[in-house]
């Protein structure tokens, strides 16, 4: 369970948000909403520990995340605007390396199965630089299928994806929530996850 209380964050001298609080329990999904520049990405990056909050506390299962450090990181999967995939490597190599970095043992066949489910059949071994933007995003999102993390923090996961891929992401969210996982994401596109109510958090530009 993730609990955030009285969180404040600023970039430079500019205060993005303050007094922010919410709690997310297993099986819940939260959409962070707000205009461009309202601090959605900064909030997600703060939750990952990349940015130190000005004030407030982020707690994972009762303990402060800055004390938990690596123990918390192993429960989190973050995908930001950047895909974190290497152009020179194939989608398969990328997936295996990112799994190894996050401490997951991943076999060749499981990796290929994940990429096929993401709609990259036949392109698993091509260097990522020959793939389209949407296909690169799919290759990056394949990490969702192989990760054991409980909390998914996704910044604009639907960017560059087509209708079929969006449906697939909705399906993956549903499966993750059914396993008592948690999702926090931002998007400007409509997204429907059946079976659960979506919590909505609005950031308003000050």
């Amino acid at each position, binding site marked *: 369970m993730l609990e955030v209380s009285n969180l404040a964050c600023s970039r430079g001298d500019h205060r993005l948000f303050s007094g922010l609080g919410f709690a997310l329990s297993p099986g819940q999904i939260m959409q962070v909403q707000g205009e461009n520049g309202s601090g959605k990405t900064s909030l997600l990056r703060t939750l990952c520990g*990349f*940015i130190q909050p000005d004030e407030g506390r982020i707690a994972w299962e009762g303990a402060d995340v800055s004390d938990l450090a690596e123990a918390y990181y192993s429960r989190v999967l973050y995908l930001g605007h950047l*895909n974190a995939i*290497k152009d*020179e490597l194939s989608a398969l190599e990328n997936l295996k390396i990112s799994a190894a970095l996050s*401490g997951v043992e991943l076999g060749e066949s499981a990796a290929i199965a994940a990429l096929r489910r993401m709609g990259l059949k036949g392109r698993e071994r091509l260097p990522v630089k020959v793939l389209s933007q949407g296909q690169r995003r799919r290759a990056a999102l394949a990490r969702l299928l192989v990760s054991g993390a409980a909390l998914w923090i996704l910044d604009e996961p639907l960017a560059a994806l087509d209708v079929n891929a969006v449906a697939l992401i909705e399906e993956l969210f549903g499966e993750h929530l059914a396993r008592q996982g948690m999702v926090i994401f931002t998007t400007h596109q409509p997204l429907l996850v059946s079976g659960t109510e979506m919590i909505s958090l609005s950031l308003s530009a000050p």
Partner: protein
Amino acid sequence: MNKILLLLFVVVRRDLVLAMRRRADVLTTLIFFVMVVSLFPLGVGPESDMLRKMAPGVLWVSALLASMLSLGRLFSADHLDGTLEQMLLAPQPLSVLVLGKMVAHWMVSGLPLVLMTPVLGLQFDMPLEAVGVLMLSLLLGTPVLSMIGAIGAALTLGLRGGGVLLSLLVLPLCIPVLIFGTGAVGAATSGMSYSSHLSLLGALLVLAVAFTPWVTAQALRISME
């Protein structure tokens, strides 16, 4: 412990595979080194006494400059494509990942220089023993350059004009390595014992392995904010 070693291996192998697929980057460092070293005999003239005396200094300074050349890329590629964010979120200590990147960086940009040294030593008419000591001193010293350089690379990550700043930060810190490295060769050519110089270089290497990964990891966390 095993998991940490495995992770170290994954990072080293990943960076080596990437380097092999971007061979131009690796070759620039090596060719720069060869070019700079070769310019000296051409510029100074063929007096072999003077060349022999200059050789250790020229090779060491060139190795230092060549290693600066590739430092900028140490973290910037991973920073630009978001991989660094994922490394910060790895369930293992970040310093292990950083050590892996340092090892890979040395294997790509330091080790080729060491292996090239005997050929370049010929241009300076270096005696065989001096070439051997020079290679040993470079073998001990170039990893230290990669490691100290990594701190600077992490601190200047994402800055505009970071390359120049990086050199200004790192070069002064490399002076002890340069002094002991060239000192070892100087002692060998004048018939004195060079083991103390090499021991000091070895001590610097041990210190660097112990502290620089941790310092670099902290610097990366600051730069990523």
